[in-house]
C-alpha cells in the first residue's frame, strides 16, 4: 500500500473543524518533530517528484477554461514543466484547476470531484470568478468563490488571467508544495 500520505502533506488551517475537506492541520516541520515524526530526505524526493509532474484535472467551466487550453497550446506551453497530461478522470489527477464561475447547480459536482481525487491533491482557483465570484458575486445562482466549496491553495487573479499568469500559478503551487516550511502558517484556529 502507498505511504500514509496525510503526514507528509498536512492540510489547511482556518477551515472549520468538522469540515470533511480539512482532514489535518497544516503543521510546520518543528511541530511534526515534536510529535516524533522525523522528516528524511525521502520526503524531499517525493516533493521533488510531485513538483515536477502535477497532472491537472480537465475541469473547465467558463472563459478561464479557454485561457487554460491556450496555456497548453503552442505559444505558452505548459508541458515544458511536465504539467500537460490533462487527466479526465479525477482518480489520476493531482491538481484541480477551477477555471470559471462555480454556480449553485455545479456545486455538488465540484465537491464530489474533489473528494474523488487521491490524497495529495491541490486546488488552483483561476480567475476572479473562482476567487470570489467575480462580476457575478451578487447573482442568485453563483457561489461566491471556490473556497466556499473546496479548500484552495493558489489563487490566480484576472478575468481571464493571461496564460503566463496560469503557468506562474502552477509554479507557485510547485514552490509551495516543495518548501512547506516557507508557507505562511495562519495559527488562529487553536
Amino acid at each position, binding site marked *: *500500500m*502507498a*505511504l500514509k*500520505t496525510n503526514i*507528509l502533506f498536512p492540510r489547511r488551517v482556518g477551515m472549520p473543524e468538522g469540515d470533511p475537506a480539512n482532514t489535518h492541520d497544516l503543521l510546520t516541520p518543528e511541530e511534526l518533530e515534536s510529535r516524533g515524526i522525523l522528516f528524511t530526505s525521502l520526503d524531499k*524526493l*517525493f516533493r*521533488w*517528484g*510531485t*513538483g*515536477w*509532474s502535477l497532472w491537472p484535472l480537465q475541469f473547465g467551466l467558463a472563459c478561464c477554461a479557454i485561457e487554460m487550453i491556450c496555456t497548453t*497550446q*503552442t505559444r505558452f*506551453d505548459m*508541458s*515544458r*514543466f*511536465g504539467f*500537460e497530461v490533462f*487527466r*479526465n*478522470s479525477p*482518480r*489520476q489527477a*493531482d491538481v484541480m484547476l477551477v477555471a470559471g464561475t462555480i454556480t449553485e447547480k455545479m456545486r455538488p459536482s465540484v465537491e464530489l470531484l474533489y473528494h*474523488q481525487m*487521491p*490524497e*495529495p491533491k491541490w486546488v488552483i482557483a483561476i480567475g476572479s470568478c473562482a476567487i470570489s465570484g467575480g462580476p457575478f458575486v451578487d447573482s442568485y445562482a453563483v457561489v461566491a468563490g471556490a473556497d466556499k466549496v473546496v479548500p484552495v491553495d493558489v489563487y490566480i487573479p484576472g478575468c481571464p488571467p493571461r496564460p503566463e499568469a496560469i503557468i506562474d500559478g502552477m509554479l507557485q503551487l510547485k514552490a509551495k508544495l516543495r518548501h512547506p516550511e516557507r508557507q505562511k502558517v495562519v495559527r488562529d484556529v487553536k
Partner: protein
Amino acid sequence: MEFINNIFVNIAGLVRWVFNWLLGWLGLPLGLTDVLMTAVYWVAIVVVCVLCALFYVIWERKLAGYIQRRPGPNRLGPNGWLQTIGDAIKLVMKEDIVPDKADKPVHLLAALLAFVPPMLALAAIPFGEGMAALDLKLGVVYVLAVTTLASLPVLLAGYASNNKYSLIGGMRVVNQAISYEVPQAFALLSVIMVAGTFNLTEIVHFQQQHLWLVFVQPLAFVVYIISAVAECNRAPFDLPEGESELTAGVFTEYSGMRYALFYLAEYCNMFVAAGLATTLFLGGFSGPFLPGWLWFILKTFVIMSVFIWVRWTLPRIRADYVLSFCWKILVPLTLLNMLVTGVVLYLI
C-alpha cells in the same frame, strides 16, 4: 568487433562460471546453475522492460510536442529527459483508491497482471546473437499465445471497477483484441511459410543469408503493424481508453501506482510488438557494422516512433468500424497473401 558483438553472451558465460564455482564450493548439485541463470535472465528482462518503458514515455511526450509544434517537457533533467522519473515517483506516492462497490481482489489483481504478458513475450525474443532467454523451437507460436493474454487484464480492470465507462471500455477491449488476433496470426503465418521455421533465431539467420522478409512479405508487414497497434490499444484503435468519449475508459477508477502499472504495461506491450516486428520482418539483430543488439534497439526505436507518430496524427475509429475493418479487409487480405505465398513457394 567480435567481442562487442556478443558482450552479453560472454557476461552470461562468466556469471554461469561464477555460479558453478560457487555451487561447487558450497557442495550443492551443479544443476542449480540453470535455475539461477533463468533468474538472472528474468531480472535482465524486467530491467529491459522498465528501462524501455521509462525511455519511451518521455520520448513519446517529446515527439508529440514536436508534432504539435511545442517544445514538450524540457525543464526536468538535461533537456527534460528525467521527466518520467518525476512522474514515476509521484505515482508511487499517490493514494490508492479502490471504489468500495468494486470487486476488490479483481480490481487489485488486474493491474499486476497487466505487466505479466510483456515479460513472458520478451523472454523468447532474441535481442542479439544467442541472447534469447528462451530459445524455443516454437518461438512465434509462444509469443502469439502470450500476447493474447495482454487483453485479459484490461478486461478485468473494466469489469472490476464497477463504473459504466470502464464497462464499455472493457467490452470494447474484448471485441477489438480478439478480432485483431486473427489477421496478426495469418500475417505471421505467411512469414513462417517463407522462413520455414518457428524458431525466432533461425528466422533471423534465414534473413541474414537471404534478404529481409519485409521485402518478401510487404503486405504481411503492414497488416502486422496495424494489428499490433490494435493489440496494444493504441490510437487510432484506443477505444478502451478513449479519452474523449469514456473519460479515461477502462482506467477511470485506477489511481496512483496501479495506474502507473497499466501506463507502463502499455509501453511494454508496444515494445514487444516492435521487437517481434523487427525480428520477423527487419532481420532482428543482423546489420553491417554495429553489434547485433544495438541494431535490434535501433530498429525497435524506429518502429516505436512510427507507433507514436500514428497515435498523434490519426483520429479514433468508431467501435463498429474497427471490427468491420478487421473482418472485411484485413482477414481476406492476409488469406490472399498466404495463398499467393504458397503458390510461389510451390513453384520455386
